[in-house]
């Protein structure tokens, strides 16, 4: 049994932690999310230079690690509420490529991703599909050796910054069939791709992405035609584990901020942290955080096991962390009182990010249902 990180992993943490500390204080972040582009391409280039974008890839793909490295990076992202698209580009698109891409695709796209020249978004959600990854109205019809894509992808995080999209589409079968799902790489400037860009309530950017008779060559297919669902599920599970890591980073700072506030804020002539009702709340926040860390580790460790084990543990983690995210976020605002409601303090931004993480890659209810399906009977 060993919960230690390797020296290399500790170096990744030191590097990313320093970068976030130096580059992501709250005022800087506010400036970034209110800027026209909403992110910092130069910070992305810096992440590439530091090797962070290569961290979850194998040596043969030009990287040096795996899921644990992604976890460490996202935990530090969570502490600073960094908005850059590590999960969409590196974890989701990178995951699809490393698990499903052929040698040519890996060389071209993972190479471009690691260098920072290509930025990816993961277009998997649809307006009416909720969290069902196979419920797809977007279609890709074979046309000789090409495919023609039509459809609408919803709330594609990071799409305004992307050069490329990884897109899930139905190549055969009925709307929710498990078979008949495929995965494609599409350049965002391909003819027939249009986007409607917007900000999100937690400070990121996203797009609605529309495909109208978008023609891609057969080389754009990642993995096997019609059999993309297992690959998509694996990628989304890895992304779920990564967003769990982001959550624990955000929870840690939220808890520390709340305890500190309760020391400073005085009412009735004494720091409010001396009131037992608030002490117990903060003790609960700490326990929720520690349970979340455990579940994040568990999910990350199990990512490379068989599908059923991976799914069960990722869902367990997302259930627990979704619940903790809500409790911690709400408790932090409550303990801060009126000040917690203002845009001025950082705690509100942590609360908002934690609130959206609750539903990202599947809500508590969704993962509870999946956990039941995998464990009952």
């Amino acid at each position, binding site marked *: 049994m060993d919960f230690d990180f390797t020296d290399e992993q500790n170096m990744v943490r030191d590097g990313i932690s320093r970068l976030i500390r130096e580059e992501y204080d709250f005022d800087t972040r506010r400036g970034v999310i209110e800027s026209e582009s909403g992110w910092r391409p130069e910070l992305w280039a810096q992440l590439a230079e530091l090797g962070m974008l290569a961290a979850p890839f194998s040596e043969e793909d030009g990287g040096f690690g795996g899921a644990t490295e992604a976890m460490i990076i996202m935990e530090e992202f969570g502490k600073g509420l960094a908005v850059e698209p590590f999960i969409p580009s590196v974890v989701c698109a990178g995951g699809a490529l490393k698990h499903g891409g052929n040698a040519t695709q890996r060389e071209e796209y993972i190479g471009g991703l690691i260098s920072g020249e290509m930025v990816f978004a993961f277009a998997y959600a649809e307006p009416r599909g909720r969290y069902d990854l196979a419920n797809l109205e977007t279609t890709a019809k074979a046309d000789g050796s090409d495919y023609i894509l039509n459809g609408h992808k919803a709330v594609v995080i990071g799409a305004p910054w992307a050069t490329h999209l990884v897109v899930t589409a139905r190549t055969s079968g009925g709307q929710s069939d498990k078979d008949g799902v495929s995965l494609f790489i599409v350049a965002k400037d391909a003819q027939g791709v249009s986007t409607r860009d917007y900000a*999100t309530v937690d400070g990121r950017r996203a797009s609605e992405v529309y495909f109208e008779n978008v023609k891609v060559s057969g080389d754009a297919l990642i993995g096997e035609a019609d059999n993309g669902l297992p690959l998509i599920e694996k990628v989304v599970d890895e992304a779920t584990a990564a967003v769990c890591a982001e959550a624990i980073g955000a929870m840690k700072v939220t808890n520390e901020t709340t305890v500190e506030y309760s020391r400073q804020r005085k009412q009735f*002539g004494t720091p409010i942290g001396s009131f037992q009702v608030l002490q117990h709340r903060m003790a609960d926040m700490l326990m929720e955080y520690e349970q979340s860390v455990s579940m994040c580790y568990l999910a990350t460790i199990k990512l490379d096991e068989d599908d059923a084990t991976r799914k069960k543990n990722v869902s367990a983690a997302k259930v627990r962390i979704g619940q903790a995210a809500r409790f911690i976020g709400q408790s932090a605002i409550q303990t801060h009182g*009126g000040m917690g409601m203002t845009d001025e303090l950082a705690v509100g931004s942590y609360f908002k990010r934690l609130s959206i993480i609750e539903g990202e890659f599947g809500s508590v209810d969704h993962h509870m249902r999946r956990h039941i399906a995998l464990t009952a009977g």
Partner: protein
Amino acid sequence: MNLEFTEEEKAFRAEVRDFIDNNYPKDIGTRGVQDEMSREDMLAWHKILGKKGWSVPAWPTEYGGTGWTPTQRYIWGEENARKNTVMPLPFGVSMVGPVIYTFGNEEQKAEHLPGIRSGDVWWCQGYSEPGAGSDLASLKTTAVRDGDDYIINGQKTWTTLAQHADWGFFLCRTDSDAPKPQMGISFILVDMNTPGIEVRPIKLIDGGYEVNEVWLTDVRVPATNLIGEENKGWTYAKFLLAHERSGIAGVARSKRGVEQLKEIAAAELLDGKPLIEDMGFAQKISQLEIDLSALEITELRTLAGEQAGKGPGPESSLLKVKGTEIQQRLTELTLEAVGHYGTPDFRSFPDDGSNDFPIGPDYAHHAAPTYFNMRKTSIYGGSNEIQRNIITKMILGL
């Protein structure tokens, strides 16, 4: 024990429903997020009710009240919630109005009550300060007597919709040497156009601006604006807070909220079927409805007590705690129900004058900001921790 409404009460319901249906202006928006509504829209229904004589139902008839029983007032609230009307704001009607007719002198009543009834004068509440929230009695804003005037200096905060206010009622310290902090406070009416007042908007986590800081620098106010006696303001403030809490359960509005949630859950799909047919989600909605019916009966029991002559007591704390928990739960479930489309920030779309959200279903676009915004309800009006302290002290006697 009888929960049936009487024939008179049923007739009353028909009458007010008819009036609302025929007179509620069709062109004003709903108050999902307050700062999006114009001042005129927020006052429109108030002004119509003022003309009808129904804007201040709870007031004594001599001051313009309707003489309705508590049950009739309850029906009135329900019917307005059914139509989702923008009701008269509480600051004049439910807060300072009752203080003025209870503790004010004849000149003050004559000067201020008509404007509150008609909706022509907008009031705001100057209570909380940066250092005085839950511990309101520690407030530091001072009013110093200077001839026929008071000179007010200090800073108030969380002043709701002060950006529109014509008048404000302020708690000020008039005796710093009083043996207890509660004993040196006075209740003073302030014309918000007086020189030395600066209203600074506070941006909240939902992106809106519904509360403000109010800075007062050498604000000169006639001493005739003092309500009641100097240094007795805490008594009036507590009287007002009890009034504030009695309406805070929000049962009728939450009922409507549950209906809206059900509509959303019927429109959203899970595995190709309406979300509302999912046992897990259906259970959550039922739990909420059950909690809400308990609260409704509890409120009716309180009303019955009031009808029998008992004023709102510490049990109003129960209504506040449970009412706000239900309001917040509604917003949680709504955000869960809308799925992916809870994430876009509707404020980031250019205002093209249309009320339609350019992406996703219309019901989704306020889900997250409303969830964020409603966290305030367990903080304002005496935080829910303070309410539990009141219950512990006043009811349990601990």
